[in-house]
């Protein structure tokens, strides 16, 4: 904790004079159009209010006009870095609502794509976190080099690099092209080499350590009460990973560990993400080895004119950023009555102020980078 400056300039009315800075929506380090109204005393943060809504497209209202199928491309654009996990969360909720089953091959494909998405998200995050700290571009480009290989895999399977639009209700859209599994196995075999290179580049680096250790500490009680999920929660030491708790899909069949942190600071969050990438590689190896042959979509599933019975359902997955949930209310018609997205980035921002109080403004930027927000999800 850095103490506020000993000599405080007093304004005319005797109150300390604070400098109000708006870390405005156009800023290279705010991960999108995000604004923080910061009140500074010298360099110490006294008050911090996050302001967003610059990317608000009211997706929830658009979905009330589209059919269930037509909302799937819009879910890609929520958390635009990890589009396949968004698709899976939505497809899972509609399957719960309509009572559809998913064949085994489709479940394995979903797990493989979801873990690949986790890899690309965490490598992008590690790169951007370091860029915020001032390592302009080099670690980012290393991470993006690996990310490109995975995006090429997505393009050959789904047709698009980022807006994949691949999951359907009851399974997947199309089957794996020939040779895709071998390419993925190759990539999974070569990925640990990149992780080792990345760690030797960064983890021992004194600048990184000095800027991240002890910065932005979050206690487990506050994290649980504030609804923080994902790597940020596990960095504080709370063992809650929805893949292990709910065991949705076929995650119950894979053996993997859940890395937990000790202190809850920025360095722990960064290391947790590197360790989670290694665990994802383990899951990928097991899934690629065991994937069965078979159909990829439930024969009862209809593409057009899906009308689930009136009712509601809440489905959630462990997305790379936290718990991504969808809450759907159906009134029996072809469009949903209420379509709600539970965005992990928005909820994780609740305690941004608590983590930044008393630290310098430079730390506030690093802490924001470690929360891992994507504005498409915060604003929807």
């Amino acid at each position, binding site marked *: 904790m850095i103490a506020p400056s000993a000599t405080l300039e007093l304004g005319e009315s005797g109150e300390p004079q604070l400098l109000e800075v708006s870390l405005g929506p156009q800023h290279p380090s705010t991960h999108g159009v995000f604004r923080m109204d910061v009140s500074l005393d010298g360099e110490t943060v006294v008050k911090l209010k996050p302001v*967003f*809504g610059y990317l*608000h497209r*009211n997706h*929830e*209202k658009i979905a009330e006009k589209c059919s269930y199928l037509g909302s799937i491309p819009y879910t890609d654009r929520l958390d635009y870095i990890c589009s396949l996990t968004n698709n899976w969360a939505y497809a899972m909720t509609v399957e*719960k*609502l*309509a*009572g559809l089953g998913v064949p085994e091959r489709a479940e394995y494909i979903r797990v493989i794509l979801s873990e690949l998405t986790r890899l690309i998200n965490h490598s992008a995050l590690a790169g951007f976190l370091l860029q915020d700290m001032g390592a302009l571009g080099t670690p980012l480009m290393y991470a993006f080099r690996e990310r490109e290989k995975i995006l090429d895999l997505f393009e050959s399977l789904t047709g698009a690099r980022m807006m994949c639009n691949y999951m359907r209700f009851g399974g997947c859209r199309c089957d794996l092209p020939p040779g895709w599994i071998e390419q993925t196995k190759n990539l999974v075999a070569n990925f640990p080499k990149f992780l080792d290179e990345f760690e030797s580049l960064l983890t021992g680096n004194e600048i990184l350590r000095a800027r991240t250790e002890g910065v932005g500490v979050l206690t487990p009680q*506050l994290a*649980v*009460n*504030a*609804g*923080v999920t994902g790597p940020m929660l596990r960095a504080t030491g*709370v063992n*809650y990973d929805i893949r292990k*708790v709910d065991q949705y899909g076929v995650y119950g069949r894979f053996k993997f560990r859940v890395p937990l942190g000790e202190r809850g600071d920025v360095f722990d969050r960064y290391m947790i993400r590197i360790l989670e990438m290694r665990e994802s590689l383990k899951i990928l190896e097991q899934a690629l080895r065991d994937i069965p042959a078979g159909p990829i979509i439930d024969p009862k599933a209809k593409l057009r004119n899906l009308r*689930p*019975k*009136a*009712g*509601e*359902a*809440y489905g*959630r997955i462990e997305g790379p950023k936290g*718990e991504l*949930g969808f*809450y759907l*209310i*159906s009134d029996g018609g072809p469009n949903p009555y*209420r379509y*709600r997205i*539970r965005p992990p980035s*928005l*909820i994780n*921002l*609740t*305690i941004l102020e608590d983590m930044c109080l008393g630290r310098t403004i430079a730390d506030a930027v690093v802490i924001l980078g470690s929360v891992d927000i994507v504005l498409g999800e915060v*604003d929807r």
Partner: protein
Amino acid sequence: MEALEQLKARVEAAVPGAQAEIVPNGSPANQPSLSLDCGHARTVAEFLRDDPDLRFDYASNVTGVDWPEKTIKEKIKVKKLVSGVEKEVEEVCERKTPAYLEAVYHLYSMARKHGPLILRLRTENRSDKVTLPSLTPVWRSCEFQEREIFDLYGIIFEGHTDLRRILMWPEFTDHPMRKDYVEPDDYEYEPTPHDDVLTRARQHYPGGTPA
């Protein structure tokens, strides 16, 4: 997690005066919810969070839903006098469902790893009596989500620490997610090809409507 009926009984035993009702769920998802009255909602929430068996310490999702007034036509059998003889006649009778706004809370437990428990709080009507007790002092995760419901639906949460608009700009006056929201068309916009397409398409049919 125990069944919803037992939970309801425990809640009613622990918080005297609380009225909880089970709202069934028609879909195969099997997630019925518990509707609470506004007076005791915060005490019930604290009980759910602190009780050692339940420990619902994680409010995962807070949603607003708009239920406008609906007229349902039903056929009921009524005994009526028809030309001197009492007979059972089917009559079509109209019933109006009440209009209200609703906040739905999804609760999970990180300590006991169970859930979800779904709570519903209803306002009295959609126009003037739209206040609900805020559960932010119980679970901090409701803070931004209740602000969003205030912004998009207009429900006022009493006891919220900082209730102001979150996604729309502060001078905005309407509530966009309500079912009767009319989008404004007085903003500056550029002509899009859509207009061009419609005029060109209409040229094929000089009479007016397409065949």
